[in-house]
């Protein structure tokens, strides 16, 4: 990993309009290039909007789709994480995010945990991903986890144990729960969670949330970059579009891991053994078990 400048594009995508959203991505990418940004992270489903419902199949793209060509070209000047609906072989539709760099797609993460409760209905429309992987880039080793994936600490653990130094989290979080919290109850929970992950997994966490309204739900923004000691390095505005820029420095990561050698002391063999035991136990709990 080296020192570089990253940015979060806190945008309000147009629901179901890939063409308009592509134009918006290009515009923000050019702005990022002019500010010497090396990596630009867009929110979840940034090319399509979030509450798509039956539009999912109409806005889906295959990874190599020409629609992404303009962004792939721009990725020769700024690496990008872009959210889209991926139509995978067999016509399985995934909530996906691609890492574009040097004119190519380096990695695609398919959202593993599809929330289907409360305001969410993803399993009705989408297929779940089956992998959590760290991957190498010109800027360092990274992993992508999309929104709900982050609410499963084991997924975050896998990313970190697989060597991710920078955890990229595209998100489309609708605000829920009014009260004394600013701006929502769930937004303050997110803030606690990402800061804790920075601390526990001694890695950078880039939380890229969107803004705007869909069917009356309001995405709260507040994107954030957290350092490997859990400290917030940069924080975007709530409820408004923003381009959040932060410097990411390998030295900070090194020092954090020296001070807190949690990953060194990780016991994956023990974890695996105990997880296998738990799975065996659960299998035995069935009616005939």
């Amino acid at each position, binding site marked *: 990993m080296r020192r570089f400048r990253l940015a979060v594009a806190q945008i309000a995508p147009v629901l179901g*309009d890939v063409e308009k959203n592509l134009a918006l991505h290009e515009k923000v990418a050019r702005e990022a290039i002019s500010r010497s940004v090396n990596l630009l992270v867009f929110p979840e489903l940034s090319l399509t909007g979030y509450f798509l*419902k*039956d*539009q999912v199949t109409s806005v889906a793209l295959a990874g190599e789709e020409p629609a992404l060509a303009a962004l792939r070209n721009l990725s020769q000047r700024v690496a990008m994480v872009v959210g889209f609906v991926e139509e995978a072989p067999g016509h399985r539709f995934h909530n996906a995010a691609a890492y574009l760099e040097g004119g190519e797609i380096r990695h695609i993460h398919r959202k593993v945990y599809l929330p289907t409760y409360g305001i969410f209905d993803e399993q009705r429309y989408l297929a779940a991903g089956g992998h959590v992987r760290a991957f190498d880039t010109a800027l360092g080793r990274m992993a992508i986890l999309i929104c709900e994936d982050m609410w499963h600490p084991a997924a975050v653990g896998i990313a970190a144990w697989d060597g991710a130094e920078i955890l990229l989290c595209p998100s489309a979080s609708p605000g829920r729960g009014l009260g004394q919290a*600013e701006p929502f109850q769930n937004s303050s929970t997110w803030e606690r969670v990402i800061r804790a992950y920075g601390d526990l997994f001694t890695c950078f966490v880039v939380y890229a949330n969107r803004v*705007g*309204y869909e069917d009356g739900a309001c995405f709260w923004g507040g994107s954030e970059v957290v350092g490997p000691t859990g400290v917030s390095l940069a924080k975007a505005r709530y409820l408004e579009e923003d381009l959040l820029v932060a410097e990411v420095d390998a030295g900070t990561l090194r020092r954090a891991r020296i001070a807190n050698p949690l990953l060194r002391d990780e016991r994956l063999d023990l974890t695996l053994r105990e997880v296998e035991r738990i799975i065996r136990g659960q299998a035995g709990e069935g009616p005939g078990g």
Partner: protein
Amino acid sequence: MVDLRLECETVRKILTGFIDNEVRKAGFERVVVGLSGGVDSALSAFLATEALGPQNVWAILMPYRTSSPESAAHAALVVNTLGIHSLTVDITPMVDVYFAGFPDADHVRRGNKMARERMTILFDHSARLGGLVLGTSNKTELLLGYGTLYGDMASAVNPLGDLYKTQVRQLARHVKVPTVIVEKQPSADLWAGQTDEAELGFTYEEVDKVLSLLVDQRCEVPDLIAEGFDEKFVRAVYHKVQASQYKRRLPVIAKVSARTIDRDFRYPRDWGR
């Protein structure tokens, strides 16, 4: 355990952003709002004025001959405070000519007719002025079914539908709706001396607590009884919510085709916007 206090400045920002966004997405820049003189429609008008500017807000005052003069005075106070457009349409002639044919109609029928009469005027002015009808129903009345279906419940965009009545009051105070409007007894003003709380049989403070526990915190009725709430009251509230469910949905459609509207034909309301 029940804290209905709002961080008002944040809510104000979210709701004005919502109005601006939903109105413009639909291709409009104006709204039409029925101003009754009460706190709900006053707050809707205040928020819309902040979101769209006074030049884009049309208040329609639609009194009936038995409406209290105080209501008209309070509606005028809102119009003058905000500097928005206003127009008065007296609904007495059309309502009276109708009930001349049905002189035995009770309060409820008359009240519903008035609410629906007002609705048709608002939607006519929506077409006339090129503005969306701004809703004024709050979460308490929507949940209790304390509103007229296709009457005051009808609108295109409703900024208040997720705020309980007691929260509407807090936010109204915060955005400086005149105190006299915020603090008066809520009334549908359908007949002389009517008040919401007398008609409902409980206060908004009481019912908002129960609704918040049942709806937002997902408590069951026995949980509330165990917490010491009056059983009859809780069951009555639960029954009102259940009995009025139909008012919060499209009319039920007999399913015969492969893909039925709102059942397995599901697009966002903001589809293509």
